[in-house]
């Protein structure tokens, strides 16, 4: 095994250092310390915006630490960067603003490492699943610190149960791909949704329930817009330069349906992939602002996840129809379009981008429309323990839609 910090990983390391610097400019060390304690020891279930819970500084520090820890894992196992690792790192970064923290991710990772030992295989084969599977990290906090369990040893039980979840997770994640045939990009969200539904059903059967939670910060749109716009513009410029000062292959990339496995990083190279990611970032940031949403932990998390999957299946052409369908649904349904769940639902509806990429914009709009209806009903099932709730909804939407679409659409010869 050859351990090397590849240049792509250095980019994430620089970004983390900038985040740490920004944290200390925005908040004082004392504020960061108090906030960080809240992140570590309070409930992290959906929707817990760390910026509201702990302040922007503490949220940025947590984000930097989670990204650095993820890079440490990838470098430690000796994995080379590709579309999937880039997507995983951005997803880790995004969700470290609302649910994943530097402590609660480890029991799940440990469980998956134990699984790799049990199967007598190298951990490198499971490290991607391990990073994405931290979607179930809130389970650790929920069982360890919230006092649901009626006896001492909550922390131990929380950690052991989360480790066990990690241990049984990899086969479930692999199996779930068969169910939606790769049309749901957030596959782990689907697998985790099923597992968390089982776990929550079990806990509820014994009188343990999670309370509804909504922590949602507002009023920072201008500051975050400037930060995000700077980041994404930089990505486009760097990508343009790395791609031989051209946008060559961008149109070829747009022609890809985006179904799993579409590794743009390996297929087209880092340069044009970064351009695609930057464009998606600017587009989704503007989308949030146009529908009247707030830029905060969860929505920035959503935007970063879209950007990450810009290396692994998403591009403007396949994302746009699905998000239009989701927006249309939000305008017509009984909920406010700029309410937290709907803004997140619209952003994460892009998990179904491969449907529009493969079958055309019309089916993409329908998928996005139905995705919103599903996502508003599913969070109850897992009690907010699965951070990728939209991946769960996307998986179910695919299981229903894909057989119907393939059965009734006219095949193009």
């Amino acid at each position, binding site marked *: 095994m050859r351990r090397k910090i590849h240049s792509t990983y250095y980019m994430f390391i620089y970004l983390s250092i900038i985040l740490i610097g920004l944290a200390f400019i925005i908040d004082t060390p004392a504020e960061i310390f108090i906030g960080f304690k809240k992140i570590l020891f309070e409930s992290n279930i959906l929707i817990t915006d760390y910026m509201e819970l702990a302040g922007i500084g503490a949220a940025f520090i947590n984000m930097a630490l989670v990204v650095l820890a993820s890079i440490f894992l990838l470098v430690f196992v000796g*994995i*080379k960067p*590709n579309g*999937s690792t880039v997507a995983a790192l951005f997803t880790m970064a995004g969700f470290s603003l609302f649910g994943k923290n530097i402590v609660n991710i480890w029991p799940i990772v440990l469980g998956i490492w134990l699984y790799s030992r049990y*199967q007598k*295989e*190298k951990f*490198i*084969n*499971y*490290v*991607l*699943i391990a990073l994405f599977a931290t979607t179930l990290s809130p389970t650790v906090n929920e069982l360890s610190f919230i006092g649901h369990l009626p006896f001492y040893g909550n922390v131990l039980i929380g950690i052991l149960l989360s480790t066990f979840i990690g241990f049984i997770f990899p086969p479930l*994640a*692999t*199996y779930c*791909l*068969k169910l939606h*045939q*790769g049309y749901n990009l957030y596959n782990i969200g689907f697998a985790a949704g099923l597992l968390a539904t089982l776990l929550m059903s079990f806990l509820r059967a014994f009188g343990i329930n999670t309370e509804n939670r909504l922590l949602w910060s507002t009023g920072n749109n201008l500051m975050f817009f400037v930060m995000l716009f700077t980041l994404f513009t930089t990505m486009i410029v760097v990508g343009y330069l790395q791609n031989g000062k051209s946008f060559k292959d961008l149109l070829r990339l747009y022609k890809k*349906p985006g*179904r*799993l*496995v*579409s*590794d743009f990083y*390996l*297929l087209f190279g880092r340069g044009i992939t970064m351009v695609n990611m930057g464009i998606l970032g600017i587009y989704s940031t503007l989308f949030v602002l146009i529908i009247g949403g707030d830029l905060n932990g969860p929505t920035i998390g959503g935007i970063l996840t879209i950007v990450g999957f810009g290396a692994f299946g998403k591009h403007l052409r396949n994302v746009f129809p699905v998000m239009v369908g989701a927006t249309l649904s939000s305008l017509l349904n009984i909920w406010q379009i700029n309410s937290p769940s709907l803004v997140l639902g619209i952003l994460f509806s892009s998990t179904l981008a491969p449907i529009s990429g*493969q079958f055309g914009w019309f089916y993409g709009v329908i998928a996005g429309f139905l995705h919103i209806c599903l996502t508003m009903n599913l969070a109850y099932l897992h009690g907010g323990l699965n951070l990728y709730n939209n991946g769960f909804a996307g998986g179910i939407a695919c299981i229903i839609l894909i057989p119907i679409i*393939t059965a009734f659409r006219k*095949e193009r010869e």
Partner: protein
Amino acid sequence: MKHTDQRNIKIVTELMGYCYKHGSDNVHIDVNKENEKIIIFIRAQTSVITKKNLEHLEKALNTPRCHEMEEYYWNLTGDNDTYTELTLVGMMIDEAHINYVDEEYLELLLTRIP
């Protein structure tokens, strides 16, 4: 590694699907296990393969070997009749040689070490 035979079957299914999609009605398949290696040879009669198709095939099947991607995504190969997962096949094999003999027979020789 679990499901090794199943993975080999899926690779073959995926490539057979590719041949069918490119107008072949006549596909011969040889799969040999030699020590730790699995050698897959496919010969398909088809006269519609373009230069662009060949370039795409060559590039996809020569995607760098990625054990971690195989472990997670192998279930997706050979599972869809509207889309090919050639890049994923590329990640699951160690070597690929492609020949288009007399512009009538497409020959694929793949080596895989699980």
